[in-house]
């Protein structure tokens, strides 16, 4: 294997298992005598359950049992990362298309599916809240049972679950030469990981073992311990590397149900969702942003006045955090003297929205950046120049009193402009757009790891980050290799088992290189210190006379390799160096977000399109993303993530949206009619550029990355289309039909 230092594109750890088909994902793991679960759900959004007739199912050969709410404690246990609102299974109502109300357990997947189809549910469809307007309408039914909302909640009689008021300065007394007032919408889209969620559980000792495609195993562990009234130490979560997560596998969904079934039956059970069920289980929070943005004649941003509505879904999941964290940065990466943002998190009878790469920032950036382009057009200022005027410089505040800008964002913008050929003459029907997006990283959290230097000098690193494609295994292995001077192929990484691996807060928020990376570096330094102590003892010298450089130790003029030193130290009786490393961010209880962001992830997108003006169809000629990453520990890994994020951004920009009918049913449920980008949808030229100024808090000055590439995709392409066609579109996705409608059609109504 090649070099191990930082900034080296070392080959992916775990790559050969994946390319040969040997990698075991959650649905691949052999579990002896496992039973299979299939879910029962209704074909509409909101319904009252009147009677569940399981007799047809139970009679099918191979079906063992059908579980309903009757088999669970009463009142039904509830859970959720913000509010404990989600029932383990639906009881008297279903609140979203796909909410399970029964689970069939059988000896085979086929029998379970047959059983599920045979369960008859007498139900009555109820009026549902399926759009932002529905949610705001005081006449609409309440999605959340009022008994579940606290008595002193002033919003309890509405579908507004939470409201935030952000702001500084005085918007009303701020003068502006031009005020741009527009409304933008961002649709419901779903994660569509190629691996559908998979869950299994089996009684283990007087506790439980759980397998899940989960991104945050420790959070799941805590939730299950609480629901089952077990000590955390009796809940073991196996977390195989997920086949894509993107936030959709972050928080518990059907693990509680599967676990309770396993405990009830005393046998292992497994549930693998169909792709359609994953669309029903997870999505991004959709939004409507009503923005009034004030500018001076020379393009300076002076105020933002916003009403922002985010539609969360039937249960809050982590959506309140998505909303608060993104809307708090009401001006994105820009400096502005006055902001007033009224932000509402709305309940609806739809799939609960959850974390999704970007965590609210793509939605916010769509609004903020579209306004910047509108101002550029109104003031006849170049879109690059108007951004250069307003971007915060390093050290300048964006939200007063909070972490200032921690990157040279102008540099990223200028690189993007240069790469896309900004200012060069355009062919007819062509247009260019450029955009900057900002997302705040983790504000608090903790990562722990255990590092063992074994007595032959090989290393075992035990760390709970989840590798779902971003290459965490490689990065952490590189850090050990770099710091200890041990070749990568002699480092083994143990992940994915809460019984063995110490606590990690989460794999999210692009935090792992910074948090777990720092914990790993901490562990390496402690290991080195311990080794030096032991070597000093062994040689009867003081520890100052023991000098460690990666891969070797010099004592008393003599130089030893790591294995030689260890052999010395553990000569007669074997042993190992074993230390823990940690990195904690305690956050700040007084901060509205629980703490300042540890860093900002900023990315710039520039795009050139070529439009067929008669049909609205368009091609992406060039697509550039520039990511401000601090330091790329593995440049190839960072670039591939950035390109991947760009492609995902193309998805919600060009073609993805969940379509609901008047019954709250997802109409385009499945791969046939929910379109994501394919090989043939790629831009003619796509390039990812990394800016490395060493200005991040992680090892080597690293920041996190992996989310930036999709923050600013939509406004960049919309601006390019606008230049090419003269029309301005404020809703996504920018399908050929929508572009044609904007240019030629009548008004066929807005989607939400």
């Amino acid at each position, binding site marked *: 294997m090649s070099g191990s230092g930082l900034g080296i*594109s070392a*080959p*992916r750890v775990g*790559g050969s*298992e*994946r*390319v*040969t*088909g*040997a*990698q*075991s*994902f959650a*649905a*691949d793991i*052999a579990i002896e005598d496992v039973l299979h679960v299939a879910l029962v759900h209704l074909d509409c959004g909101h319904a009252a359950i009147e009677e569940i007739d399981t007799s047809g199912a139970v009679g099918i*050969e*191979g079906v063992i049992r059908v579980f309903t709410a009757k088999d669970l404690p009463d009142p039904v246990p509830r859970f959720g990362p913000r509010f404990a609102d989600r029932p383990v299974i639906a009881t008297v109502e279903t609140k979203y298309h796909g909410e399970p109300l029964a689970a069939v357990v059988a000896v085979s*997947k*086929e029998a379970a599916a047959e059983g599920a189809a045979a369960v008859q549910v007498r139900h009555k469809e109820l009026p549902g809240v399926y759009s932002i307007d529905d949610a705001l309408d005081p006449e609409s039914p309440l999605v959340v049972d009022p008994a579940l909302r606290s008595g002193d909640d002033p919003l309890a009689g509405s579908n507004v679950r939470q409201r935030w008021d952000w702001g500084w300065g005085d918007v009303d007394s701020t003068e502006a030469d031009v005020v741009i007032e527009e409304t933008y919408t961002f649709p419901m889209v779903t*994660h*569509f*990981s*190629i*691996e*559908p969620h998979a869950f299994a559980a089996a009684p283990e000792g007087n506790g439980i073992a759980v397998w899940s495609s989960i991104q945050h195993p420790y959070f799941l562990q805590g939730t299950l311990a609480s629901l089952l009234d077990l000590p955390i130490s009796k809940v073991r979560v196996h977390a195989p*590397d*997920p*086949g*894509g*997560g*993107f936030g959709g596998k972050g928080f518990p969904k059907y693990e509680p149900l599967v676990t309770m079934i396993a405990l009830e039956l005393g046998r292992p059970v497994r549930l*693998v969702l*169909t*792709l359609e069920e994953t669309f029903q289980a997870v999505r991004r929070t959709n939004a409507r942003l009503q923005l009034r943005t004030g500018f001076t004649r020379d393009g300076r941003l002076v105020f933002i006045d916003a009403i922002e509505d985010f539609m969360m879904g039937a249960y809050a999941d982590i959506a309140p955090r998505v909303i608060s964290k993104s809307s708090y940065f009401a001006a994105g990466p820009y400096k502005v003297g006055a902001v007033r943002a009224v932000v509402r998190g709305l309940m609806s009878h739809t799939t609960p929205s959850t974390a999704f790469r970007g965590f609210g920032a793509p939605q916010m950036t769509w609004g903020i950046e579209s306004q910047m382009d509108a101002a550029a057009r109104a003031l006849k200022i170049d879109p690059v120049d108007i951004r250069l005027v307003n971007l915060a410089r390093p050290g300048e505040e964006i939200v007063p009193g909070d972490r200032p800008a921690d990157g040279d964002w102008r540099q990223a913008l200028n690189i993007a402009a240069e790469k896309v050929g900004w200012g060069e003459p355009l062919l007819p029907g062509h247009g260019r757009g450029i955009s900057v997006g900002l997302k705040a990283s983790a504000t608090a959290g903790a990562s722990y790891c255990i590092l063992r230097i074994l007595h032959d000098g090989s290393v075992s690193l035990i760390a709970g980050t989840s590798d*779902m*494609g*971003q*290459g965490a295994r490689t990065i952490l292995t590189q850090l050990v290799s770099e710091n200890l001077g041990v070749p990568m192929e002699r480092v083994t990484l143990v992940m994915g088992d809460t019984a063995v691996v110490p606590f990690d807060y989460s794999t999210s928020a692009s935090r792992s290189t910074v948090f777990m990376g720092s914990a790993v570096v901490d562990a390496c330094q402690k290991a080195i210190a311990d080794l030096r102590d032991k070597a000093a003892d062994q040689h009867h010298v003081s520890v100052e006379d023991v000098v460690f450089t990666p891969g070797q130790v010099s004592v008393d003029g003599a130089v030893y390799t790591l294995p030689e030193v260890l052999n010395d130290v553990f000569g007669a009786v074997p042993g190992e160096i074993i230390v823990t490393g940690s990195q904690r961010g305690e956050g700040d209880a007084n901060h509205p977000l629980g703490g300042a962001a540890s860093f900002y992830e900023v990315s710039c997108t520039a795009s050139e399109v070529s439009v067929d003006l008669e049909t609205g169809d368009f091609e992406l000629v060039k697509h550039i993303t520039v990511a401000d990453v601090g330091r790329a520990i593995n440049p*190839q*890994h960072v*670039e*591939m*993530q950035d*390109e*991947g*994020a*760009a*492609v*995902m951004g193309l998805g919600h920009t060009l073609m993805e949206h969940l379509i609901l009918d008047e019954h709250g049913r997802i109409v385009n449920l*499945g*791969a*046939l009619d929910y379109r*994501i*980008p*394919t*090989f*043939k949808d*790629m831009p003619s030229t*796509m390039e990812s550029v990394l800016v490395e100024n060493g200005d991040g808090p992680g090892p080597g000055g690293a920041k996190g990355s992996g989310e930036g590439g999709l923050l600013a995709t939509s406004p960049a392409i919309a601006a390019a289309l606008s230049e090419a066609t003269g029309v301005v579109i404020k809703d996504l996705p920018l399908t050929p039909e929508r572009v044609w409608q904007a240019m030629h059609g009548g008004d066929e109504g807005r989607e939400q």
Partner: protein
Amino acid sequence: MSPIESAITLTVNGSRRTVRVSPSTTLLEMVRSRLELTGAKECCAEGECGACTMILDDEPVNSCLVLAVETDGSEITTIEGIGAAGMTPLQESFLATGAIQCGFCIPGMVVAATALLERIPRPTEPEVREGLSGNLCRCGGYKRICAAVMAAAGGAGAP
């Protein structure tokens, strides 16, 4: 009504196997659960994503849309059969090019790309995109997967 099983005999990765299957079992289900070869994946189960791609009688197919009983007397190659005697140049190329992220789509990609290179040993980039257009990657690795196939083929435009 319950399934009536029958025995089928087919060649899997070069070995003759006899398996009992019910008529409604798909080739994908048989390979994954009866033969315990879990490399091929289930995602959409309706021929839209390519994660289940296998080679059936020399042609790449979506194994979720083939009934196991249809393969009596046939030859199939799964990802486990490719590189069984050591990684192929294509597989090495995937690793070298950084084409692998979460890895879930990769077995299907490798099988489809292997079949493509059998048919067109030196494809152009559009031919690679067309040949793999039935394989979805949500991690968005298309650019590098394409580059990996081109590099393995030594084709025009390989980096």
